[in-house]
């Protein structure tokens, strides 16, 4: 039975260490896919993103999304780490790692995790501008909803 690695933390993460955690000491893993989401500077205008989260629910929601990925794909390991607090441009925000015997499952599950996480995990981004103004809350994109909807399963 695969136990997902789920962490909500202020500290940075190390993608290489998280890959090693899913592959160390085993010979049945044929594919590892990682996705790292970073804070971009929006053309030099953004000083930092501030990420607020709902403690408790954020963990539970990532657990639910990871469990759903395990139900749908034959994964040998799955990791989701999301940071909160103030993150400067270039800094890491989110990491998803999926491991499987074959690449297709790892690729698809990684994309599914990110699409679901973006629309379901209770995190909110606030922009702080380089001119010192504490700016606006980032608005949710309808594209993210569409991306998540494509994974909807047909009704039985």
């Amino acid at each position, binding site marked *: 039975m695969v136990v997902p690695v789920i962490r909500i933390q202020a500290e940075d993460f190390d993608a290489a260490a998280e890959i090693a955690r899913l592959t160390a000491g085993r010979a049945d893993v044929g594919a590892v896919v990682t996705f790292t989401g970073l804070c971009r500077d929006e053309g030099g205008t953004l000083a930092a993103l501030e990420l607020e989260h709902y403690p408790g629910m954020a963990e*539970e929601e990532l657990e639910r999304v990871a469990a759903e990925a395990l139900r749908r794909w034959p994964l040998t390991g799955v990791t989701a780490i*999301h940071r909160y607090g103030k993150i400067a441009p270039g800094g890491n925000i989110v990491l998803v790692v999926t491991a499987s015997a074959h690449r297709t499952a790892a690729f698809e599950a990684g994309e599914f995790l990110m699409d679901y996480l973006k629309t379901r995990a209770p995190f*909110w981004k606030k922009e702080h501008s380089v001119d010192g103004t504490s700016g606006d809350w980032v608005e949710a994109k309808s594209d993210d909803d569409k991306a998540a909807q494509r994974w909807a399963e047909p009704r039985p």
Partner: protein
Amino acid sequence: MTKLVYFAWVRERIGKPEEEVELPGNVRTVAELARWLAGRGEEYAYAFENPDVVRAAIDKKHVKPDAPVAGAREIAFFPPMTGG
């Protein structure tokens, strides 16, 4: 008493992260709770000025506006999520 928690601009507009309230008997669903809250003052009216945008969770699980509030320990209101 029911614990209400608010996040992001819902929290900023209401001006507090959480509170304990006694829900009136005629508030049966999340949508009715949002409507009742909106009538509690201008800061609440501002937070719920566009009630279709505000999302809710009961005991840390996403719920739809028609979800019953009976038995809820903690009800959260927040904008659409922008993590990832």
